[in-house]
């Protein structure tokens, strides 16, 4: 079977980079939110005791 050239088009490549950037930003903010939430939960629990 003839092998085709192994590459993505420039448009696809840009699109993939854009999507990965979007995911990375979302993961960053999710982790940041979780850190804040865990910190707040810990403070509230310590205050109770």
């Amino acid at each position, binding site marked *: 079977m003839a092998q*085709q050239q*192994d590459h993505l088009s*420039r448009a*696809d490549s840009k699109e993939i980079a854009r999507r990965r950037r979007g995911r990375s930003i979302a993961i960053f903010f999710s982790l940041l939110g979780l850190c804040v939430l865990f910190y707040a939960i810990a403070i509230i629990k310590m205050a109770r005791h």
Partner: protein
Amino acid sequence: MSDNRIAAFEPDGREQSLPSGHSGAENSALPLEGEAELRDWIALLKPRVMTLVVFTGLIGLLVAPGRIHPIIAFAAVLCIAVAAGAAGAINMWYDRDIDARMRRTASRPIPAGRILPHAALGFGVTLAAASVFVMFQATNLAAASVLAISILFYVFVYTMWLKRRTPQNIVIGGAAGAFPPVIGWAAVTGSVDLVPLIHFAIIFFWTPPHFWSLALYAHGDYARAGVPMLPVVSGARETRRQIMGYTVLLLPITLLPWFVGFSGPAYAVVATLLGLGFIYHAWLVLTDAQDESGVSLTGDKPARAAFKFSLLHLAVIFAAIALDRLLTGLLG
């Protein structure tokens, strides 16, 4: 996510080969396969289903006796939402074959090729485990346990066991969607009492007429996918009768909070009016113009109206439960 596939252009614009193992044919067929956008990952969490889950969970939390810090309450509701989304993602992973055959679900991220199945499974399992862990850390063992049971029930009992085997799938499986008010209550009290079980029963008995109304006008989709929904197995006429039966049964169940003294007469009036409204819609479904096999000659207009009304019915019932408690607290 297929992170072994790298961008084909360096920053300076030079073309770059992909790692071996990726054929050109594969890439030309689906160049962006597995490269989902953020909205695809959100779609995997079934946000529309999540809305009602969060709402009923929040009501369970608000009406429970006792106090809870607002941030802990926020964490509990977040866990309920994430757990529901996680169960939805695992459901989409398991049902990807039938989703691809149904018009309503063919454009979901997995059948459309935007998210790879194993990535969806990993995403769902991770979120499910995290939601139970955080719920335990933020609230208590009872809430975390019921949350875990609700996820396991939805995934193993409904999705993997019942959905493809019996027309009773959404009757028994409906229990999975009925857990949120119990979880909300347990997050505050650390226990499960009669009242949250009544809230559970309301959602449990509301689910069949709600889903069968949808199944009446989407039965072609279910038949194509081989899902034994009631209209596919027993026909439209029997489904109409069952919708009527469950809707009549639902009315006294929605009155139980008043009967046990948890809600006041104002709630009872609202629940009665809503119940009668739902029965009226079920009656229109039952008496819809049909051919000999019970198939609607009106494009299932009454079933569509009953489905929409069922959403309003449940939302207003739970809002009324919360408002009634609020007013009782303010006046008494």
